[in-house]
């Protein structure tokens, strides 16, 4: 028996030692140099996290059909192209890029026609020249094929499209639309051009996998994992025949998008040199990696690190619920909230607050937050015979002071910097004002509990997602209201977006405001808020007026924006500010903060990433306009 046991132990030891030696013999198994294992020179390879994870149908590259293929596997960032790109920040050379178009859209006087002049000398990755015929094919094919992604918008808006010559396209629209070109303007994505010479040989475009993809971008597909966990792209030899060439040669020869896994694994992979950019982390993950790895950084060089996306998490009231018909009630609920507690609970203090219905990011602080600061400070509400000034411009400065205790010098001290990073201010918690507003609205209080005019207890559920910062935010919102005497209960649901669409909620923590970020025009989300689109209770509300809010002044603003040229900066800002003031007056939802994304960038192999100091692009690398990052990167000299 003793011999058996000794032999077992010996064999186990030998097996383990062999396995370890064997493992160490393989470069990629040492936890480093995943690119070199592939035979790719690491100093010429950029490795990014694809937040989509592993792709369920890895060989599907037909981006014009659902299909289960990935979008941010590099496909839309590196291989696709369209007329224009709008940067969520400031851009390399201005916010708007003319990509396949050689200039801005040319509308006729009543916005029923649009002409696009195309660049010449742009080639598909298989060597065929891109021309106006590709544009006509893209639009007509999708108009004629229900089930393709852009079938709805094209068939609803386009009467006809024709190629005037190889480099000129003319659209005739079914109705006036000064924002028709938005369909071809990249925010996160847009309508991408289809290669006519490939798809015209396909029987059914809905069933074509498009593997390998033929694109207009500066990279082509090198190889991909049959399980969908990584995609490798290689710079085209003829990259000068693509639209990004005007900004120089994209620096990485190879780009890998890979599944980063859960937060902990992303941190390990970056520490091991197997990730250069992490798309997003938890706040705690971000604090941990910048502390442990000096080569890493966020959008801000110090706290709060995160990039504020042009998306506005907010408290969304269901306006078809009788409880939320009165703006005084909505305002009272806003004044019960403790913004500092919301910031700490959701982002550990790294939130960028916004009191107005516009995210505080990109160029919006210059266009909206800063110019409206005095108006907000002077803003008053009347309740219970008293006048209250609800806006607290110093709130974000106090949050900065609070987190400075933990993060020290990482937290900025300059007031302007603090306002950029933490927001310009928010509504101060004022329970007296909230009580006066509720009493004016006919509510009564027994002890600390509020009762509605019909005598029933004032309470409702607050729908939140099952995890993440929005879950943490919503839980604290409900807790604030409970403490103030409102019977609000947080309800974590797996299907919040489905229920939001059919109005199956009372209060919801989500977002209905998403903007270009770098451009003041608000039509991107606001046009869908017109009352013409609001459906009845129980019916499915099309995106994005999830609160089903209707107001004649809102309709007037939207209708006027429709008549204003997209690039009429002054008038767009003016109308945007009118919208922002209306939201403050009516409080149809409670704006909270921008959606902050904890992008991590490792400077071990590459430098030149976009940052708050050099905001030439959005660092969130699943956005298609992140493609300009590749032109600006430089390898670190080894």
């Amino acid at each position: 028996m003793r011999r058996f046991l000794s032999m077992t132990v010996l064999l186990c030891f030998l097996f383990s030692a062999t396995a370890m030696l064997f493992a160490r013999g393989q470069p990629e198994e040492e936890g480093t140099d995943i690119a070199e294992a592939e035979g790719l020179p690491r100093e010429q390879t950029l490795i990014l996290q694809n937040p989509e994870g592993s792709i369920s149908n890895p060989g599907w590259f037909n981006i014009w059909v659902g299909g289960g293929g990935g979008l941010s596997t590099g496909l839309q960032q590196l291989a696709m192209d369209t007329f224009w790109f709008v940067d969520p920040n400031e851009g390399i050379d201005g916010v708007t890029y003319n990509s396949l178009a050689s200039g801005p859209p040319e509308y006729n006087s009543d916005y029923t026609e649009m002409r696009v002049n195309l660049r010449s000398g742009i080639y598909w990755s298989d060597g065929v020249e891109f021309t106006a015929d590709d544009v006509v094919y893209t639009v007509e094919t999708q108009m004629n094929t229900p089930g393709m992604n852009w079938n709805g918008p094209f068939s609803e808006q386009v009467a006809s499209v024709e190629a005037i010559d190889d480099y000129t396209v003319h659209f005739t629209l079914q109705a006036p639309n000064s924002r028709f070109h938005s369909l071809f303007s990249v925010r996160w994505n847009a309508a991408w051009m289809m290669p006519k010479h490939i798809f015209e040989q396909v029987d059914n475009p809905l069933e074509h996998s498009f593997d390998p993809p033929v694109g207009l971008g500066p990279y082509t597909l090198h190889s991909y994992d049959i399980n969908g966990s990584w995609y490798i792209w290689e710079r085209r030899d003829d990259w000068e025949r693509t639209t990004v060439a005007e900004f120089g040669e994209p620096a990485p020869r190879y780009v890998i998008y890979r599944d980063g896994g859960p937060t902990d694994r992303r941190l390990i992979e970056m520490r091991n040199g197997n990730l250069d950019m992490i798309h997003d982390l938890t706040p705690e993950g971000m604090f941990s990696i910048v502390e442990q790895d000096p080569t890493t950084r966020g959008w801000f060089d110090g706290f709060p690190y995160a990039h504020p996306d042009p998306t506005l998490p907010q408290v969304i009231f269901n306006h078809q619920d009788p409880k939320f018909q009165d703006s005084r009630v909505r305002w009272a609920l806003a004044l019960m909230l403790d913004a500092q507690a919301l910031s700490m609970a959701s982002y550990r203090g790294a939130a960028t607050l916004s009191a107005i219905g516009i995210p505080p990011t990109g160029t919006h602080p210059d266009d909206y937050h800063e110019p409206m600061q005095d108006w907000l400070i002077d803003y008053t509400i009347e309740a219970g015979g008293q006048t209250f000034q609800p806006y607290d411009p110093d709130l974000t400065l106090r949050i900065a002071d609070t987190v400075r205790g933990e993060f020290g010098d990482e937290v900025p001290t300059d007031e302007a910097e603090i306002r950029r990073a933490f927001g310009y201010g928010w509504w101060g918690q004022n329970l007296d004002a909230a009580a006066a507003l509720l009493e004016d609205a006919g509510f009564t209080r027994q002890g600390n509990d509020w009762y509605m005019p019909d005598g029933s207890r004032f309470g409702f559920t607050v729908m939140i997602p099952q995890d993440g910062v929005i879950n943490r935010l919503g839980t604290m919102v409900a807790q604030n209201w409970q403490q103030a005497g409102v019977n609000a209960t947080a309800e974590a649901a797996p299907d919040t977006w489905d229920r939001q669409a059919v109005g199956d909620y009372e209060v919801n923590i989500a977002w209905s405001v998403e903007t270009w970020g770098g451009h003041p025009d608000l039509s991107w989300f606001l046009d869908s808020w017109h009352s013409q689109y609001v459906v009845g209770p129980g019916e499915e509300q099309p995106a994005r007026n999830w609160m089903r809010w209707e107001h004649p002044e809102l309709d007037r603003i939207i209708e006027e924006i429709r008549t204003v040229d997209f690039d009429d900066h002054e008038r767009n800002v003016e109308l945007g500010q009118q919208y922002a003031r209306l939201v403050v007056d009516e409080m149809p939802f409670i704006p909270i903060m921008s959606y902050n994304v904890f992008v991590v960038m490792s400077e071990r192999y590459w430098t030149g990433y976009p940052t708050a100091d050099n905001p030439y692009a959005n660092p969130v690398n699943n956005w298609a306009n992140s493609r300009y990052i590749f032109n600006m990167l430089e390898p670190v000299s080894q």
Partner: protein
Amino acid sequence: MERSANVEVEGKVRMRAYFIFIAKRAVQLLAVVFFGISAAFFITHLSPIDPVQQAILRITSRSSFSPTALVAMREALTEMYGMDQPLGTQFVNFWVRLLQGDLGPSLIAFPTPAMDLVLRALPWTVGLLVTAVIITWLLGNILGGLAGYYQNNKFLKAFGVVAMGLQPIPYYIVAFIVLIIFGFVWPVLPISGGYAMHVTPGWNIDFVMSVIRHATLPALSLVLVGMGLWFLGMRALVSNIITEDYVTYAETAGVDSKKIVGFYVIRNAVIPQLTALAMVLGGIFSGTVITEEVFSYPGLGSLLIQAVNGGDYTLVIAVTAIAITAVAGAIFVVDLLHPILDPRIRVE
């Protein structure tokens, strides 16, 4: 002569009884598969997650589509997905298609057939699961059996302490610890994926070795957690068996201890362990879902999570159907093995 004829008749009777036993179990197997898959059909179709809405969200959530365009898109997708038909009709159509080997198209990967996605993922799950289960079951039972028989052996006592210590730790904690040790503290093994980037998938030595290396940590985590159960169970069983008269008699008669432990003790103790193996197979399948998530290891678990999140009930049913059939099939096989392994078990 007459006696020989009687034995032959008795043998035929026993064989006939065995075949009746198999037939009964086969009917049970079919019933379990039918009701299991039907339950999966109704549960997924009654889910609040609407696949059309999920598809629209995937396509439009970051695009500027007008509300009327979204309505048109919803109508087109509802028709394409066949969701415009009553639930009863969908159920009948589903079984008609399934009996022809077609589960319909995946909704998150439309129009790719759901079975294509499942068959792509299946080998990874089966490979990992079978390897881990065999190693776990064999090691746990052999060491547990030896520990029950040689109760004073220090090595086996120490192993028992380790097994008891690991047993109550939740699986995901063990997986995470393994990941930290071999991915971060001593980064010698890959912590994600199914194979290295530089190898070409196929029957070549580089690919096979790469798959083995990538499966090491996921398999190790499953083995570490699973082995304690078998070890402790087997040790307890053997501790009881060694007090039986026939063991005492064998020892008194001077039978070799290896023979006693191998042929008399462990063989008798292994029968309930085999039954338990069948019972825990379903749980082990659930465990691989977490394994695949932690290590980004390809397989049915990852696919199932994607399908649930995307409201893709065709794919959920496809994965579930495979899992139900596999687990029920394994139990069926174990049932059939019982009379063969243990002569005391007879079928009537």
